[in-house]
């Protein structure tokens, strides 16, 4: 709890600026998308084994965030490919853990679970 520095999905929280803590669920999803920021995404990517986030990564991440924060849900893959101009195979190659566990998670979208 209350970890700083490196992070992995097994760690629950990471300290942010302004003294706030970003909290993750047991599948490594951020519990509050508003606490997401780019540095956090870079740290999560590193924990996922990605050497860094390219422009293409950011294009996907920013589309996912914009969609979620304006529409209130995650996009279908067809909407994601249309919105980013990337094919599904290209996106999956960018995020080895896939769209849900890779891209959506790095974009700070919550895990759509029930109680």
């Amino acid at each position, binding site marked *: 709890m209350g970890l700083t520095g490196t992070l992995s999905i097994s760690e629950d929280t990471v300290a942010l600026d302004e003294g706030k803590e970003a*909290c993750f669920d047991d599948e490594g999803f951020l519990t509050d998308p508003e606490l997401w920021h780019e540095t956090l995404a870079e740290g999560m990517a590193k924990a996922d084994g990605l050497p860094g986030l390219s422009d293409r990564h950011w294009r996907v991440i920013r589309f996912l965030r914009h969609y979620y924060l304006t529409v209130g849900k995650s996009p279908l893959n067809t909407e994601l490919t249309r919105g980013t101009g990337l094919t599904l195979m290209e996106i999956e190659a960018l995020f080895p853990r896939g769209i849900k566990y890779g891209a959506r998670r790095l974009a700070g979208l919550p895990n759509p679970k029930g109680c």
Partner: protein
Amino acid sequence: MREMTLTINGAPYTVDAHDKRVLLDILREELSLTGTKQSCDRKGQCGACTVLVNGKAVRSCLTKVADLDGAEVVSIEGLGTPDNPHLIQEAFVLAGAVQCGFCSPGMIMAAKALLDENPDPDTEVIKSKLRGNLCRCTGYTKIIEAVKLAARFLRGEINPDTVRPDPSRGMIGVSLPRPHAMMLACGTAKFTADIRMEGALELAAVRSPHEHALIKSVDTSAAEKMPGVIGVMTAKDIRGSNRLKDDQPLLCDKKVHVLGDAVALVAALTKKQALEAAQAVTVAYEPLPAVKTPTEALAEGCVQVHEGEPNLCYIHPQIKGDAEAALRESATVVSAEFSSQLIHQAALEPEASLAYFEEEAEEPKLVVVGRSIIIHHHLMVLQEALGWDNMRYEQGFIGGQFGIKMDITAEGLAAAAAIHFRRPVRYVCSLAESMLITTKRHPFEMKVSLGADPKGRLTGYDIDFIVNNGAYTSAGKSIINRALFMLSGSYNIPNVKALGRLVYTNDAWGGAARGAGPPQVNFALESAMDLLADKLGMDRLEFRLINSIRPGDSISTGQVVDEWPYPECLEALRPHYKRAMLQAAPFKHGKIRRGVGIAGGSFGIGRGGPDRSNVAVELMPDGGLTIYGSIADPGEGNDAMLTQISSHLTGIPQHKIRLVCRDTDRTPDSSSASGSRVTYMSGGAMVNAIAALTSAMGEVGASTYEEMAAAGKPTKFLGTRVQDATFLDPKTGQGAPFESRVHGAQMAEVEVDTITGKVRVVKLTAVVDPGTILNPMIVEGQIEGGLDMGAGMALREEYVHGRTKDWVGLKFPTTKTALDMEVILLETPRKKGPLGAVGVGEFVLLPTAAAIMGSIQDATGGVRICHLPATPKRVLEAMTAKTNK
């Protein structure tokens, strides 16, 4: 062929005199009169199919059409319509007797027959005449009130306008009818099985007769050649992960883990053909030892339910202070073992789904219709399980819920078959099959010790609880967590030590069930409170009062609370408690003895931990408002909550507020209709969306849609509500799981037959404080239904997987078991609730079983019954145990 003619809703209908079908088939299949429902596998147990034949109420599922020559048949559609309802339908709506509405058409037709015969029936007559019509939602109280109200309408004493709430009373705190109630009362609301599609294939599943076995081979060749069969599919035909959860296959390929697991699917032109062909699929199994109980599962060398996974699949401790030392040093300690049983949530509507493609494309859009209460999550589950992304989930009306629809069943198989066969597919399960494939309430085994100081102040609590997970982990981990969130109930216990363990077995798998964990642990705690009060020689109510949490105290998770109106609930119960004790006092000897018991509870609102809901609102050109959110309403009255709050805040009339809640394409993700969270979280998100809309209108001085459009401003705004809560620390179980809670106390008055051991609940009195009360009638309805369900848990209900196959076997509540109830509502506005409100639906179940056990003990003077349900055998054993001491 000899023809014969009958009339159905006034229109002539001709059939072959040798037709072997029952009337229900004609109504639903041929005439699409789907207001007449089917629940009990045509055993005449549920009454949902009740219609009038020559003025008499009959079960259309048992009525052969060949016996109806010249008969006049009236179904719910012939009684009235939403635009022109019958007075009985008006009465059901105005009395709040329509919750999920699945039973309502049958109930209304039975009431029609009764009132035609007897214009002024009393309660006992109504109970007798409606005894064959089942309802899980209401506890029958408001149904009986509705019949009496209808009788007054029909006698001309009053009319619906007399009792309709005066519009000048506003929107909040007013018992307005639910917006969807009239559709449900008139049978026009479409439940999933009511939706037909031309050319849809019918599906049947091949299910395991074994509790635990390896699948050696599946031979579908004979089935594929049978009449009407389009094809047979197995796990290899599913493109995706074939997993509903990590441990739960959609179609089993290597191994079955529980009786009823699906192994293959047959798609045919008719249901009969599909069922017959399913019988012809040959599956070779190699049976494995079946693990029946957690004790067996935890024994050394026990076979693993899931390869590579220990049977002990989840464990969570909770440590606050030093409970061992506190108990060691306590002046008085009680220790006991408690258990609760496997229970079916028993929503009246059987499992059903329809899946079809709605557009031509390389990957066309698959539409899955079903009864999920968390549609965006289940859409994602289906996408992954089936390897098909372009999909939307559409929710039908939901015939009862109580947690069971947190999991999908028929949807996965219907969708898989639609993809495989590229045809629309309909999968409507029988009741017996529905029972096999749905989650149940987890059974708990609990060992507790509770201590107090010489003044009766609680000192420490130790609880070790083992939860039988069954074969799959649905909400099992959440059940453990939620039990820990609410472990100390309503009380200030400075030292707590707990350990929750979740254990795989080959039994029915547990899932969400009204309350989801807290009802079980609260039963143990409240029972221990009685035992400790008795040992201390203290009055049970006073003992609870002095130990109530006060603002500034902390619960077992260490969270310090700032609002806790539980003492007020006990004080409100006090005069009733005194009255009941006085009334019971003369009946402590003899054959029939009376007793009084009380119990309390406090229930957290939300998922527990971080929680988020998104809801959008849109100002419409006609001056109305549309609300968008994946907010299921399986009977709780969320339609009323959304429209009453939004009308109150915007001034837009309730009838101009529209709800778009059932479709993943058209709604933001509002998460689940669970955890009593909808009013608090989704109501809160809607309040924020309305605030954004009104703020934007204020910025440009607009008061209408046209003015907003002229100013170039958007008219649709998204609101979010994020709960300020945390998960529990995995090592200590400490954290702040909820912002707010609902509180209450209940009292049970019972009569015990000391010869037979039978218990009759004379009355249940419930005091509940749910914050600001938006709609008293709906809140009362939720509480009454919960009390009835709690009494079933306490006294009757126990599901046995594979053996319990229908409503009679389940001991479903009827008007015969219906209780006298009194609901007392307190109203302490919550700081963060929308207009001060919280949810109420699940809390009610927390105190009931313990209150009833306390009342039985008070009546008999015997030992405490610690194992649910309190069957007559257990009651007699408890009395004997006392006698033998």
